[in-house]
């Protein structure tokens, strides 16, 4: 890139190049180094060291043709150097250094120089395909069922998405020190329980993938739900979940992963229309559909179709299919309610739970009338599971309102109001309540 002597105009360019490589490659490099070094902390240190070496060497030697392979190799050898240093006062480190060194020597046996550019293509142990596997390994490890659910989310966002501890804390409205401890404990657990760094075997794949999808969906919803807090940080969270969903679909084209990505994209397509200028929540039926993002809808609908065709889909795909039916309707009145109610029937069989039942009741009310819907909601509430769920009471209130039973509707809205914690929803319910009984 430039000559070795002194600072030149090329310095800034190389610094920018290193930065760009960091954004593009640091997570990939980390994923591979965790495999090669067998330890999260060692690998993170090695990533730091590798980029430090890049900042120092690239201005002199030029940006290597395959920066990723260069960084992996540099990180690996820096880590071994570090362990060697430590070995002088830590006996256990000596054995580890020896082990890692012989592995590295084995990998380097075929190609020539460790830091040469052709190493990546010659390195039999980790060709490009192998590197992609490392990212999958990292995702599956961060979402391992042995880790606490909160820890899975924090670890995935930090290690796979590259968010900082502070960014995660802001998005989840917690203290950075709390998130940091979750991450430290999760890494300890991975080490102590010897959680293997691997893509699960086909036999366990469905169950483990389900845990991964759950993390993605939680992250997405955290960013999508209109609650208080740093709105921008939360929106970014949805963006991260979508990015992660795309990565997962690219690495592992599983129907349910496609279904979840579709679901997230279809929800995301309505973001602009679901809150008013003053920040009020706008119900699906009242949204300005011209503000829906058509390209996200196209992408989401296409994914739903692919997933449905596979015949191996599950709840996420079905929810996405329902969302796609809504997306296809030009107006709320034009919604194909029989199809939606039918999809809820299938969803209820795939994933029997009271919230799906509630949504199905609302769809039935649209198809067969408010009376039929109310019967379903009442029997659901009588079962008790949804007694404290504000949306069950607001759905019931809505049906009562449509049936002209104003007094009962008012009671139900008030019940819903007492149960919700989200400000925009509170304002929405208050508005409904005041509309119910306009003072003469």
């Amino acid at each position: 890139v430039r000559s070795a002597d002194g600072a030149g105009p090329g310095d800034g360019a190389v610094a920018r190049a290193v930065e760009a490589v960091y954004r593009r490659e640091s997570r990939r490099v980390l994923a591979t180094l965790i495999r090669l070094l067998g330890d999260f902390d060692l690998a993170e240190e090695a990533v730091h060291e590798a980029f430090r070496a890049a900042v120092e060497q690239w201005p002199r030697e030029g940006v290597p043709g395959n920066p990723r392979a260069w960084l992996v190799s540099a990180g690996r050898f820096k880590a071994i150097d570090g362990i060697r240093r430590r070995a002088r006062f830590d006996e256990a480190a000596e054995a580890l250094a020896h082990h890692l060194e012989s592995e590295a020597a084995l990998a380097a046996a075929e190609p020539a120089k460790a830091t040469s550019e052709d190493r990546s293509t010659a390195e039999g142990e980790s060709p490009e395909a192998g590197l992609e596997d490392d990212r999958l390994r990292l995702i599956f490890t961060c979402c391992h069922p042995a880790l606490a659910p909160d820890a899975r989310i924090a670890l995935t966002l930090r290690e796979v998405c590259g968010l900082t501890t502070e960014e995660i804390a802001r998005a989840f409205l917690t203290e950075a020190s709390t998130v940091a401890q979750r991450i430290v404990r999760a890494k300890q657990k991975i080490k102590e329980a010897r959680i293997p760094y691997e893509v699960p075997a086909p036999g366990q794949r469905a169950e483990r993938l389900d845990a991964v999808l759950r993390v993605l969906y939680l992250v997405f919803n955290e960013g999508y739900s209109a609650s208080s807090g740093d709105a921008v940080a939360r929106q970014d969270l949805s963006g991260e979940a979508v990015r992660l969903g795309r990565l997962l679909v690219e690495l592992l084209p599983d129907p349910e992963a496609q279904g979840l990505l579709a679901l997230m994209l279809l929800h995301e397509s309505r973001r602009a229309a679901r809150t008013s200028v003053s920040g009020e929540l706008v119900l699906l039926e009242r949204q300005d559909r011209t503000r829906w993002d058509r390209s996200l809808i196209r992408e989401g609908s296409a994914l739903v179709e692919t997933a449905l065709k596979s015949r191996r889909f599950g709840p996420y795909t079905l929810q996405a299919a329902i969302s796609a039916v809504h997306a296809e309707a030009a107006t709320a009145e034009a919604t194909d309610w029989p199809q939606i109610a039918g999809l809820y029937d299938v969803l209820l069989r795939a994933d029997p739970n009271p919230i799906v039942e509630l949504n199905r009741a609302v769809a039935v009310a649209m198809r067969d009338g408010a009376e039929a819907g109310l019967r379903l909601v009442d029997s659901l509430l009588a079962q008790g599971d949804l007694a404290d769920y504000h949306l069950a009471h607001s759905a019931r209130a809505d049906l009562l309102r449509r049936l002209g039973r104003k007094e009962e509707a008012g009671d139900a809205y008030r019940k819903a109001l007492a149960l919700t914690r989200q400000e925009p929803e509170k304002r929405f319910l208050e508005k409904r309540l005041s509309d119910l009984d306009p003072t003469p």
Partner: protein
Amino acid sequence: MKYLCLAYGDEKKYQALSKAEIDAFGIACKGHDEELHQGGHLALIASLSPSRSSTVIRPRNGKTELFDGPYAETKEQVGGFFIIEARDLNEAIQVASKHPGARVGENIGCAVEIRPIEFFEVGEGLGK
């Protein structure tokens, strides 16, 4: 981000150690200290004279008055501090964990406290 790391210890317990124990402690610290200095995170590091050498200045009845320190009369006192540059709190924890105070000296109340720095400026007084 920059983080201030405060290294605590019980001065009385340290002073009560025998010469051999102090030497052993010093040797145990040496490697960890080197580790901390490697890695390019350390911005500055300092160790302090005992807390009885402290002077505290505070406003009293509208005037500035002097008091013998330390500010807080606790068993464990700050014996040193360092400032590190890290990507986030978890990286800061990883780096600060290499300080001897986080690894050895359990018997003399050693601990390292990490505080995120919100504003940082190097004044002219810190000349070369």
